[in-house]
C-alpha cells in the first residue's frame, strides 16, 4: 500500500487530499512556491518542500522539480489535484518511468480524452451519444461552409485542444461562418499552439450536467450519479448541486450507463467526470471527459458518503473499488457554492490581498473545503477561488435554506468576495424553482448584483460603526500623545502582546 503521497498542488485541493491521507495513515508531502510558504497546505502537510518562484510555470508546473521532490522525500505516489499537472500526459508517463504511482489515468487516456476530436471519435465508436457535428478538422473556407451546412445552424466552432471557453465561436448565420472559423483558429493557435477546430451543433441554453465515474484496474467501472453545474459565469462554475433538479430516475439510469460506457471505452482507472449537455427536452450529449478530481466533487461525496480521494488512492494502488453500483444511492441534497476573492460589483475584478478576518459558518449540514485564514495574504498569482461552501440537507428546498443560513454567517474581510452574489443566486426565483440553464447568470445579472433592500438601515449602522471605531482609534492616539513615558500607555502594552513581527 501507498505510504507517502506528494501532492503536486496548492490551496484547497491540496488540503482536501491531505485530509484523506491523514485518515488513511499516509504521510503527505506538500510543495510550495515562493508565494506559498505561509499557505495552509504547507502548514497541514507532514513534510513540505520549496520548488521555486511564484509563477506556476516556474514551480508547480515544472515536472523535473516535482519528480525530484518525490524522490528526495521518498513518496510512493503523486496526487496532482486539479489544474496544474493533473491532465498532463507527459507527467503521467514520467511518473511511471520513475517508478512513482501517478494518482490519475495513464498518458494514453489523458491524451485521447484531452483532445476533443479524438475523444468524440472514441465516444461515437463506444456508442455514447455526442453532440451532432463532425470529427474532422476544418482545413479551409470551403470545408467550413460545407460542414456547417451539413450540421445545420446554429453551430459552435471549437478548438480541439481548447478549454475554458477559449477558441470557441458561436455562429448563428451563414454570413458569419468564415469569420467565426478564422477567429476560433487564431485564438486556438495563440492559446494552445494548435489551430485544429471542429464543428458542433449548438445546443440552445443547455444544462451542464456531469456524471462522476470511478474505475479500477480490475475492469470495474461505476458511476456516482450526476452533478448539475449550469450556474456558470464565463464558463466558470459558480454553483453546483446534486441531484439535478432536471433529472428523472429514468434519465439518470440511462446517462449513468452512458458515462460508464464512456469510461470503459478507454479502460479508465481512477476518478473521472463525464460531462454532458442536456436540453430542455432532456436530450443529452456527451461533451467531454475530465480525467481528474473535479472542483465540485464534494457534493457527490455528501450524498453518497463515498470519499472519492480515498477511492482514487486505493485504485491507484491496484485495489478494487470499495463499492458496487447497486450499493450506491443518493441520500439528501447537496449544493456547493464557490467563494471567490472578487468583487461582483466591479465587474468581478479579482481581489487578492490580506484576509483580515475569516470566520466560517458552523453547525448542521455545512462543509468547508478552503484554505484561507485570518491574517493570510492571498497571493496575486493563482486562482481567485478561496473556498467551497458545501451544504447538505434532506431535500433541495432545505438545502437552499441552509445555504442562505451558511452564507449569512460566513465572514471574510480585507478582500472582497462574492458571498452576497452567491446569496442572491439562492434567493432568485429561477434557482429556487430549479428551472435554470447555463443562461442563468446572464439572464439574472441585474437581480444578482442589485443593492439589498435593507441597505438604508445598514447604511446607518455603517455610519455608527465608523464613528465608534474612529472614536476608539482617536482615543487611542490621544492617549498615546498625552503620555510622556512611552512604556506606560495601555494600548501599547496590548500592541506588544499582540504585535506580529515578521521573524
Amino acid at each position, binding site marked *: 500500500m501507498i505510504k507517502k503521497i506528494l501532492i503536486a498542488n496548492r490551496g484547497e485541493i491540496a488540503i482536501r487530499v491531505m485530509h484523506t491521507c491523514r485518515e488513511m495513515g499516509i504521510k503527505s508531502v506538500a510543495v510550495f512556491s515562493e508565494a506559498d510558504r505561509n499557505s495552509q497546505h504547507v502548514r497541514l502537510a507532514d513534510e513540505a518542500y520549496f520548488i521555486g518562484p511564484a509563477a506556476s510555470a516556474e514551480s508547480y508546473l515544472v515536472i523535473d522539480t516535482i519528480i525530484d521532490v518525490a524522490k528526495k522525500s521518498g513518496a510512493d505516489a503523486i496526487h496532482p489535484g486539479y489544474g496544474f499537472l493533473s491532465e498532463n500526459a507527459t507527467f503521467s508517463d514520467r511518473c511511471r518511468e520513475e517508478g512513482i504511482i501517478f494518482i490519475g489515468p495513464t498518458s494514453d487516456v489523458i491524451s485521447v480524452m484531452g483532445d476533443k476530436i479524438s475523444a468524440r471519435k472514441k465516444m461515437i465508436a463506444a456508442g455514447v451519444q455526442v453532440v451532432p457535428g463532425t470529427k474532422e478538422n476544418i482545413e479551409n473556407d470551403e470545408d467550413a461552409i460545407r460542414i456547417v451546412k451539413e450540421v445545420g445552424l446554429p453551430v459552435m466552432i471549437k478548438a480541439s485542444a481548447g478549454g475554458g471557453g477559449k477558441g470557441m465561436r458561436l455562429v448563428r448565420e451563414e454570413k458569419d461562418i468564415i469569420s467565426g472559423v478564422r477567429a476560433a483558429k487564431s485564438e486556438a493557435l495563440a492559446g494552445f499552439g494548435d489551430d485544429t477546430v471542429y464543428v458542433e451543433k449548438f445546443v440552445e441554453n443547455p444544462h451542464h450536467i456531469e456524471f462522476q465515474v470511478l474505475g479500477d484496474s480490475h475492469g470495474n467501472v461505476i458511476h456516482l450519479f450526476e452533478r448539475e453545474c449550469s450556474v456558470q459565469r464565463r464558463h466558470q462554475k459558480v454553483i453546483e448541486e446534486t441531484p439535478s433538479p432536471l433529472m428523472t430516475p429514468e434519465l439518470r439510469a440511462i446517462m449513468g450507463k452512458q458515462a460508464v460506457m464512456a469510461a470503459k471505452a478507454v479502460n479508465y482507472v481512477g476518478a473521472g467526470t463525464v460531462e454532458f449537455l442536456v436540453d430542455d427536452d432532456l436530450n443529452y450529449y456527451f461533451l467531454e471527459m475530465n480525467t481528474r478530481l473535479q472542483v465540485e466533487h464534494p457534493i457527490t461525496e455528501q450524498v453518497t458518503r463515498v470519499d472519492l480521494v480515498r477511492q482514487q488512492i486505493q485504485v491507484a494502488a491496484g485495489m478494487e473499488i470499495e463499492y458496487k453500483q447497486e450499493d450506491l444511492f443518493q441520500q439528501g441534497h447537496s449544493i456547493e457554492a464557490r467563494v471567490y*476573492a472578487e468583487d461582483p460589483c466591479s465587474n468581478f475584478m479579482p481581489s487578492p490581498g490580506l484576509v483580515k478576518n475569516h470566520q466560517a459558518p458552523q453547525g448542521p449540514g455545512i462543509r468547508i473545503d478552503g484554505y484561507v485564514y485570518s491574517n493570510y495574504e492571498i497571493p*496575486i498569482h493563482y*486562482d481567485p477561488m478561496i473556498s467551497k461552501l458545501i451544504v447538505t440537507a434532506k431535500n433541495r428546498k432545505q438545502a437552499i435554506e441552509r445555504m442562505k443560513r451558511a452564507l449569512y454567517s460566513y465572514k471574510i474581510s480585507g478582500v472582497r468576495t462574492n458571498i452576497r452574489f452567491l446569496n442572491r443566486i439562492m434567493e432568485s426565483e429561477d434557482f429556487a424553482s430549479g428551472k435554470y440553464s447555463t443562461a442563468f447568470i446572464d439572464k439574472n445579472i441585474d437581480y444578482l448584483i442589485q443593492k439589498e433592500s435593507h441597505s438604508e438601515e445598514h447604511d446607518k449602522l455603517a455610519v455608527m460603526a465608523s464613528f465608534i471605531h474612529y472614536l476608539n482609534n482617536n482615543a487611542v492616539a490621544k492617549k498615546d500623545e498625552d503620555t510622556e513615558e512611552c512604556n506606560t500607555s495601555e494600548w501599547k502594552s496590548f500592541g506588544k502582546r499582540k504585535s506580529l513581527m515578521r521573524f
Partner: protein
Amino acid sequence: MTVDIKIGDKVSEVELIERKGNNIKLSIDGEIFEADVQNITPNIYSFLYNNKSIDVEVQDGAKNKDYVVNTMMEVFETTVIDAESKYQMARGKGSGHDDENIISSPMPGKVVKVMVHEGDEVKSGDVVVIVSAMKMESEYKVKKDRKIIEVCVNEGDNIDSHQPLVIVE
C-alpha cells in the same frame, strides 16, 4: 463631538450625545440612535439596537480615516471628516485633489504592460497600464485627455492596492 461621515456621495453629520460604558447615544443628521455596542475583537462590534442584534466589522481603508464596513453581507466604504480633515482640506491638502491625477488599482497585482511614457499626451479612454491578478487582466484608462507626468511602475512589478501607477497632469 461632531464629525461628518461620508458613504458614497452622501455626507451625514454625526454627533456624540452620550457614552456610558458600552451604551452610546448619538445623532445622525438630527435623528437620535441609541445602542449597546460591544467590542468583540479590535475590529468587530456587536450592536444591540432596539434589541436587534447585529455584528458590524470596521476595517481600515485605503487612507487614514477611511473605513471599510461590513454589515451582514454588505460592504460600505466610509470616510470620517473631522476638524483636522477639514483644516487639511482648507489648506489644499485635501484628498480629493490628488486622486484625480493618480491612476491606481484598487487591488494588488502585477504590472504586465505599461503603455505610456513620461511626457506622452493621452486621449480620454486610452489605456495606460495593464495589471494582472489571479489570472485576470485589468486595463487602467484615463478619463479625460491628459499629459503623463510620471510613470511610477515598471512592467513586471508587483503592486499594492492603491499604489500610484501613473501620475497625470
